[in-house]
C-alpha cells in the first residue's frame, strides 16, 4: 500500500517536472524564432505604454488648443497635433490603453464563453453537442464584423458594448477549437482513470481535459486579440465604437482622413499604431503556434 503511494507520488513529481520542462521547452523554441520575439517585444512595449500612459504621455488625451492645430511632427510635438490641436503622440499612448483593453477583454469574453460551450459540447456529445454547435454554426454564418455592428447598433456605442460585441462575434471559433480538442482527449486513458477513481465531470473537464487542450486556445487567443483590436478600430472608424473624446485609434484615423492630403500625420500615425500592434500580435501568435506544435520539435 505504502509502496504504491510513493510510486504515485514519484510519478506526480515527475509529471510536474515534465510539465514545467514542457513550457520551458516551448519558451526555448519560441526564443529561437526572432520574428516572434520582435512581436513579443513590441507587445511588451505597448503594454508598458498602456500601464504607464500617465507618465509617458507629455499631455492629456483631450488637451485641446484650437490655436495650435495641424502642427506637423517635430520637436515640440513628436507626432504633431490633430485638427483640434491635441498632441497626437499622447493620444496614441492613451489609445493603446483602450485598444489593449478591448483586445484582451473581448478575447476573454469569447474564450471563456466559447471555451465553456465547446467543452460541454465535446464532453457530453449527443443532442447537447448538436444543439450548441448548430447555434455556433448560425453565428459563424454571419460575418463577424457584421455581427459586431448589429450588436453595437442594438446596445448602443461605447467601450463596454464594443467589448461585448466583438467578444460575442468571436465566440464560435473558440467553441469549435475547444470542442475538437476535448473530443481527442476525452477518450484517452488518463481520463478513463480519472473517471474510475470517481472524479466528477466538472473536475475531469477543468483539471484534466482543459489543461491539456490549452495550446490551441492560447494560439487562438493571441491571434484573436489582434482581430478584436482591428474590429474595434473598424467599429470606431464607422462611428459605432468608442465615444469621443477617447483616443481610439480607429476613430482618430477616421477623423483625420478628411485632412490627409494636407496634414498626413493626423491619420497616418494612428494607422501605423494599429498596423504595428496587429503585426506584432500576429508574429507572436504564429511563433507561439509553431513552438506549441509537438510535430515541429527539432
Amino acid at each position, binding site marked *: 500500500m505504502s509502496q504504491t503511494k510513493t510510486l504515485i507520488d514519484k510519478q506526480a513529481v515527475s509529471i510536474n517536472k515534465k510539465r514545467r520542462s514542457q513550457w520551458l521547452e516551448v519558451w526555448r523554441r519560441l526564443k529561437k*524564432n*526572432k*520574428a516572434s520575439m*520582435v512581436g513579443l517585444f513590441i507587445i511588451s512595449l505597448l503594454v508598458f505604454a498602456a500601464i504607464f500612459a500617465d507618465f509617458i504621455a507629455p499631455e492629456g488625451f*483631450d488637451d*485641446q488648443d*484650437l490655436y495650435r*492645430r495641424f502642427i506637423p511632427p517635430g520637436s515640440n510635438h513628436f507626432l504633431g497635433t490633430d*485638427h*483640434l490641436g491635441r498632441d497626437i503622440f499622447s493620444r496614441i499612448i492613451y489609445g493603446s490603453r483602450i485598444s489593449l483593453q478591448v483586445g484582451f477583454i473581448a478575447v476573454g469574453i469569447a474564450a471563456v464563453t466559447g471555451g465553456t460551450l465547446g467543452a460541454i459540447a465535446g464532453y457530453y456529445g449527443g443532442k447537447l453537442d448538436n444543439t450548441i454547435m448548430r447555434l455556433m454554426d448560425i453565428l459563424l454564418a454571419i460575418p463577424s464584423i457584421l455581427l459586431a455592428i448589429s450588436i453595437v*447598433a442594438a446596445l*448602443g*456605442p461605447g467601450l463596454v458594448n464594443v467589448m461585448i460585441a466583438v467578444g460575442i462575434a468571436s465566440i464560435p471559433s473558440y467553441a469549435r477549437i475547444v470542442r475538437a480538442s476535448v473530443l481527442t482527449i476525452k477518450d484517452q486513458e488518463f481520463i478513463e482513470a480519472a473517471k474510475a477513481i470517481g472524479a466528477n465531470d466538472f473536475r475531469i473537464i477543468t483539471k484534466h481535459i482543459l489543461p491539456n487542450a490549452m495550446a490551441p486556445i492560447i494560439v487562438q487567443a493571441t491571434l484573436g486579440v489582434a482581430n478584436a483590436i482591428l474590429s474595434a478600430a473598424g467599429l470606431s472608424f*464607422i*462611428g*459605432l465604437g468608442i*465615444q*469621443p*473624446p477617447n483616443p481610439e485609434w480607429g476613430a482618430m484615423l*477616421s*477623423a483625420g*482622413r*478628411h*485632412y*490627409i*492630403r*494636407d496634414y498626413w500625420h493626423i491619420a497616418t500615425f494612428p494607422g501605423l499604431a494599429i498596423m504595428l500592434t496587429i*503585426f506584432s500580435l500576429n*508574429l507572436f501568435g504564429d511563433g507561439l503556434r509553431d513552438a506549441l506544435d509537438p510535430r515541429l520539435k527539432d
Partner: protein
Amino acid sequence: MLKSKKIIILTIFLLIFSLVAVGCSNQTADAPTDSKPLIVAQRSDAVVLDPHANNDQASSRVMRQIYENLVNQNEKMELLPGLAESWEQLDELTYKFKLKQGVKFHNGEELTASDVAFTIKRALDSSHVAHIVEAINPNGIEVVDPYTIRIATTEPFAPLLAHLAHTATGILNEKAVTEAGDDYSQTPVGTGPYKLLNWVVGETVELVKFEEYHDEAKMPKIEKIIFKAISEDGNRTIELETGGIDIAYDIIGPDVDRITNAPDLNMVRDMNLSTTYVGFNVGKEPFDDIRVRQAINYVADMDLIVDAVYLGTGEPSKGPLGPNVWASNRNLQPYGHDVEKAKELMKEAGLENGFKTTIWTNQNQQRIDIAEILQNQLKQINIDAEVSVMEWGAYLTGTAAGEHDMFILGWVTVTGDPDYGLYPLFHSSTHGDGGNRTFYTNEQVNELLDLARVNADPAVREASYKEVQEIVRDEAPWIFTWTGEELTGIRNNVKGFQNHPAGHHKLWTVYFE
C-alpha cells in the same frame, strides 16, 4: 532569421501590391468632346425619383432636372412663373393658376390642370412630403378648365407660393403614375428639360435631354448628364482634379483652397439656406432655466469653433435664419465669448458647481468636432458633458421623445420663407417630431408665428419674424452655430453653372467651352 526576413519581404510586397491595386480601380476613359456627357458627383445616390416617396437632397438634385413646378424660385429666391404662366389671389384662401399651354410630359402626354390636382392630392397623402403642402385643403382644389386650376388653403397661408416651388411639389403625370404603380420611382415622368435614361441604384443616374421640351429658351445645352455617387468627400475632389467628373457638389473645408488654387478648376461658393445649431432640451432641468442656457451661450466661443471646424466656409450664425432667407434679422447681437459673465449667470442659477450633462450628435465629423470642443469649453463653468455619437434613426427618435439634454442638428429653410425656418422649430405645436426638438414654448412667439403665417401683408410678416428672432436670441433655446455655404467645385471648361441656395442646382444652363 531567414524566416523573419521572408516575412518582412512578403509584407512589403503585399503593401506595395495593395497600394497598386487600390490605385488601379475605376479609371474611366474620356469620351470624345462632342457627345461628352456632363458628369456630376454628389455624396450619395438619389434615393427615389418620385417626389412624394422621400424628401432628401440627393434625390431633389436629380429631380430638379426632371420635374417642374407651378412656380419657380430663382437663385435669389424670387418667385417666377413656372408651369403656371400667371396666378392671382382670389381671396385670402384661394389662388387661381393659369397653366402654360402645349407643355409635354416625357411620355408624350400634355400637361393639364387635372395633373396638377392629382399631384397635390397625392402629395397630401404622402407621409414624406405632406407637411410641405399640408396648408392646402384637399376639397379646395378645383379644375376650372384644362388650363386653369384653383387651389385653396384651409386657413390663410402666406408662404403658399414658395411651397409650390419646393421640389416635392413637382408636377407629375397622372397617367404615368397610375400605369407604373409601385414602380413609379424607377420610371419618373416629368415635364423638365431632362428625362431619365438609366439608373444604376447606388451608383449613377443618367439623364438625357428631352427633345420636346416646351421652353426653347431653357433648352438644355448638354445632351446627357450623369449623376455619380461618390461618398468619400476627399475622393470627389480627387476625381474632379483628375478630370473624372466635371462638377463636384459639397466640397469639404480642407479641399476648398486646393480647388480655388488649381489652375484648371473653379470653386463656386454661395451662402445657402442651411443652418447648424446646438439645441437645449428646455423641457428638462437645468435647461429650463434661461440663465443656464445663456451662460452656455456666453462660454461657447462659437467664432473660434466655426473657424476650427468649418475652416472658413460658411459663417458663424447670427440667428436662426441665414442671410438668404427673407426677413432674416441681421441686427441680432451675438452673445460673444465672455466666461466671467457665464460664471455669474451660473452662480445666479445656483449652479456654480456645474452639473453633468450629455451632448448628442449623429455621425457627422463636423458635428462630432463641435461636440468635442464644446465639451472642453463647458469645463470652464464646471459643466461635465459627455459626448454621445448616435445612429441617425435612434438620434431622431430620441430627440423627438425628449430624452436628450443638448444636441447638434441642422435645418434647411428650403422655401426661403421664414415660416419654414421658424414655425417648425420654435412653435409649441411642433414639439418633438414636428421639428421643435428643444421643446421650446413661448406664447408670444406662438402668436407672432401664427400671425405671420396667415397675414398677407409682407410688412407685417417681416416685423413679426424679426421680433421672433429677437426673442429666440434672448431666450436662447439654441446656440446659433453655423450658416452653411454651397461649395461646388467645377472644371474650368464648365460654364453657365450657378449655385441655387436650396442646393438643387439647375443643370440645363450648363455648357462646355
